[in-house]
């Protein structure tokens, strides 16, 4: 759809959440069936529901498809370099503690090139809301395997299947010190929204992994079909285990039909936030 074909709608028809989106940047660059738009919408809704002055919300992202999220939300927003969203966000959050800073990142951005910053930001308990949109591969560059790709899944740089054990991100986040840890999928719109509002209201390092389809790259390489098909997988195989005491075996294998995908709000504890 080209921008010139859009008609300007009368003010009365503007969607109530439009004020939190940079509507003048639409249409977005994301593919049909991609889950990132759902996350952006969820973030905007959570800002509105957070009870925190909208001018005090800040969005920071890195590089990749998920990194583009910062460009579509109408708050102070920074699209930084690959892997460095967390330390950039730390600078903002530490200098102006009154700001509510959310990092929206992809799995590769946050836990491969940015992995060192992830474990240290969690250890410090920096006051950040960190959303990791996990689509199991590098989508922007065309479907390469990454640190979350399940063993055996294919990518353009693993044409015979990935051989490395992937990260179990909630387990990593909990082990390194996150005070709130959740995993949801883009099917769980309400649960994600509630988890994010909780994160915004909770001072400290809050981490939400959200599974999202990448039909163009990961889906196509792994016979998942379109985005709707992957959401069907979520619906059939997700098991909610809120408050699960142990996260160590919550690995995800999208391709193994016998394996459940465990989701939930796993951790919600108190610990002094960084510099408090």
């Amino acid at each position, binding site marked *: 759809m080209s921008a010139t074909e859009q008609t300007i709608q009368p003010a009365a028809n503007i969607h109530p959440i439009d004020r939190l989106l940079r509507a003048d940047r639409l249409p977005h660059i994301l593919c049909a069936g991609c889950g990132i738009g759902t996350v952006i919408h969820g973030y905007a809704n959570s800002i509105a529901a957070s009870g925190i002055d909208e001018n005090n919300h800040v969005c920071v992202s890195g590089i990749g498809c998920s990194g583009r999220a910062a460009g579509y939300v109408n708050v102070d927003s920074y699209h*930084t370099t690959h892997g460095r969203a967390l330390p950039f966000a730390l600078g903002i959050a530490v200098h102006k503690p009154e700001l509510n800073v959310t990092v929206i990142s992809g799995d590769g951005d946050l836990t491969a090139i940015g992995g060192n*910053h992830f474990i240290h930001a969690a250890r410090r308990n920096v006051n950040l809301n960190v959303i990791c949109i996990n689509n199991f591969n590098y989508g922007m560059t065309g479907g390469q395997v990454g640190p979350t790709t399940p063993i055996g899944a294919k990518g353009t740089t693993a044409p015979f299947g990935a051989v490395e054990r992937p990260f179990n991100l909630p387990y990593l986040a909990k082990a390194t010190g996150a005070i709130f840890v959740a995993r949801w999928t883009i099917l769980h719109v309400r649960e994600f929204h509630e988890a994010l509002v909780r994160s915004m209201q909770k001072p400290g390092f809050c981490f939400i992994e959200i599974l999202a389809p990448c039909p163009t790259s990961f889906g196509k390489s792994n016979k998942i079909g379109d985005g709707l098909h992957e959401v069907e997988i979520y619906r059939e195989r997700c098991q909610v285990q809120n408050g699960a005491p142990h996260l160590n075996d919550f690995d995800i294998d999208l391709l193994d039909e016998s394996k459940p995908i465990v989701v939930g709000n796993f951790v919600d504890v108190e610990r002094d936030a960084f510099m408090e």
Partner: protein
Amino acid sequence: MAASPAKNTSAPEAGTRVLTGDHFMLGDHACAEGAIAAGLDFFGGYPITPSTEIAERVARRLPALGGKFVQMEDELGSIAAIIGASAAGARSFTATSGPGFSLMMENIGLAAMMELPCVIADVQRASPSTGLPTMVGQSDILQARWGSHGDYGIIAYCPASPQECFDLTVRAFNDADRYRVPVFILMDEIVGHMTERVRIPEPEDLHLIGRKGPRHAPDAEPFLSFAPDEDMIPPIAHAGEGYRVHMTGLTHDERGYPAMTAEVHNSLVNRLVDKIRLNADDIAMYEEVDTEDADTIVVAFGCTARSARHAVAQARDEGLKCGLLRPITVWPFPETRIREIIEVGNVKRFIVPEVNLGQLRREIERLTHLPVKRLNHAGGAMPSPDEILELIRT
């Protein structure tokens, strides 16, 4: 300003930003004090020899002044954190040496592209790679100018004494804010680890400037984060001020929105370069000693300028027509002044001593067909006055 007696600088007063008075102070500490005096809000750094004393001094001093010190997990994090803090309005600073400076390069380009002011001290040591961590180098000169990919403008100062470590760091913060660029303090191990008298002025004599902010209220009209004024510098709005800015390392239009066209890119990158290039004569600083009638001019910076000053004085005593030109900013290089000197016609040759294999010499060679004699040491030691004098005599 009344000079007070030298103070024991190992126990600086808590809660005093500007330690007005005379001190017997380490170069690294003077750099830290310059940053603090200039209103430092946020320091993110990682220990590395021979710059660590800067971080240590800031760690000890800044919290009592309401600023934030964070020891980051690496230099990638340090530079990202200070740029982020700058986006939120902080006067922000980090200190490092060659290996850490290399790690910072990508995000130095981000700071240039987002036009977020920040100050980076690089206390140079013998390089490449790990090199000689505790020994002198001056070989990050070209990296400071060209180290991040692409074209962009920066400013780099080369202090030659602890006093200048203080003075130029204050200046660096002003320049960073004024031109919205990363500004480097290119120290070297000798100057960083040298203890001399440092005179810190009264706060009102520091002449601090601030950033140019928006000229309208947030709700009055959309704020254009990257719409430059006539001076080529856009006003800046920070996170939390209500202007809903967007900044990206992607090529962007005046709103800060990604604009993936060759035209926008060409215009943006030219402005990033021109805002320094066209103001170079205002920014450039240099010192001249006996250059007026000199047929031989020694061009030297940082620690090497100290040897050169001595050599030039001795040569004058011997009746040789010799002078010193000391670039205080290596970037922008004071080329207008050097062209003028060449134009006058007295100078017949240049001598460029430096602790690298000819990085600054290239700048002189670019400006003249006159002979440019080299005196280089790869690092670990600097040219002595005698070695420079010997070259002046021959």
